[in-house]
């Protein structure tokens, strides 16, 4: 007897996203540093921010932090960074 069955897997929806335009250079820019809330992310990003200033001429950094690595970044934080920064670095410093 033939048994008919339905495939249980829901495929991922792929949405094409456009890359942000590349900056001509970092000198004189403002860079956002978004911690994902992991234990050492804030420290790691602070070190990166320092390096950006001394080596690449970044004029200022703006630090922010979200509560956890696995949840969405609140819109208010994203909007705040978008309005004030030329670029944003985020990452995991676990």
């Amino acid at each position: 007897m033939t048994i008919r069955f339905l495939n249980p897997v829901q495929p991922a929806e792929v949405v094409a996203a456009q890359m942000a335009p590349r900056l001509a250079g970092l000198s004189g820019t403002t860079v956002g540093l978004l911690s994902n809330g992991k234990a050492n992310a804030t420290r790691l990003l602070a070190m990166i921010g320092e390096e950006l200033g001394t080596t690449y001429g970044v004029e200022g950094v703006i630090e922010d932090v979200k509560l956890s690595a696995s949840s969405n970044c609140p819109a208010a934080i994203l909007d705040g960074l978008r309005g004030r920064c030329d670029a944003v670095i985020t990452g995991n410093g676990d």
Partner: protein
Amino acid sequence: MVPYQFASDIGEADDPIALQEYFFEQDWTDGLPIVPPTPERVGAFLDEMGLQPNDVLCVIPTRNRALTAEKVAINTVMAGCRPDYFPVVVTILQAMAEPAYNFHGSITSTGGAAPFVVVNGPIRDQLQMNSGVNVLGPGNRANATIGRAIRLVLMNVAGARPGVLDKSTLGHAGKYSYCIAEAEAANPWEPLHVERGFNRMASTVTVFAGEAPHGIQNHDSGEAEELLYCMAREMASIGAFTFGQSALILAPEHAAIIGQSGWSKAEVKAFLFEHATQSLSDLRRTGKISESFAEPLIKPGMRDTLREAGYSDADADRYLAVARNISSGEDCLLHRGLSADDILIVVAGGAAGGHSAFIPSWSRARISLFQTKAIEQTCTLCEVAF
């Protein structure tokens, strides 16, 4: 004749064993055989709730992934559920999709949590669920298969396959199934769902991203305060210590001793919160809380971030106060959770035996909050929807 147009591919197998082997080969199961999700059987589950295959039941916020009725029904069939279990499965997933639960993180983290589900209300009896002997163990179809259905949905629909998106370091046995009913008749206080603001005649699920249960064995004490202090010390166990929430399963024997001593549930929770503590010096000594732990929390704007993550004003202030205490470096006692309301108490288990259990929260921080949701059903006796 199947009345539904399914979006899923339809496969065919010549015999039941070949079908099982095919599902194993495709990595579509939790390692156990499944019930074949035939179009007819899946259709019966959709009928149960009046759903169409492409109805979206919920969306996983972080990944923007929609869970459709068709895919959830397929996996619920596979788990061995009856059609009348389907509303419970759907409600559990919808509760998990509340942003404060942190659906994505809780099913993918190295922490290896599982959704611990407590069912309350009349549906427990309608589905012949177990709230008694061996409540966390095998032997009851509804308990076993409802929890299993959630796991199969997480693997096949949410993509949390072990080693792919599910990065659990250890995982635990509750990841096969972690679903119980509350023993409301053995509860000396109001049942969990009434405490959580629902009508006693409503049927609900409460979902908590939980680690494996810690057994609390105490046969000798007949004193409420002794028992509660024993439980609080287990809740404070340093390996499981976080500022996250807690679930406590009180065995009926323990619940009776405490209830008969005149303690209210609020007093019990307050006592547990007061005594489930660790000193900052011990947390430092064991490396549980590093110097950098509080740094993200004391950044400007964190209060707004906490509020957006589902914290009440009071809880946000409490968390920030904890962060300041840690940051100061001065020794102090730190509580598990932020307040007595971070402790979920459920009464369940066999009538005999002094065996309760503490279930720690997933995650080292407080980033998943338990959720309670009503199961939409119609009372067959009075035809009133709860």
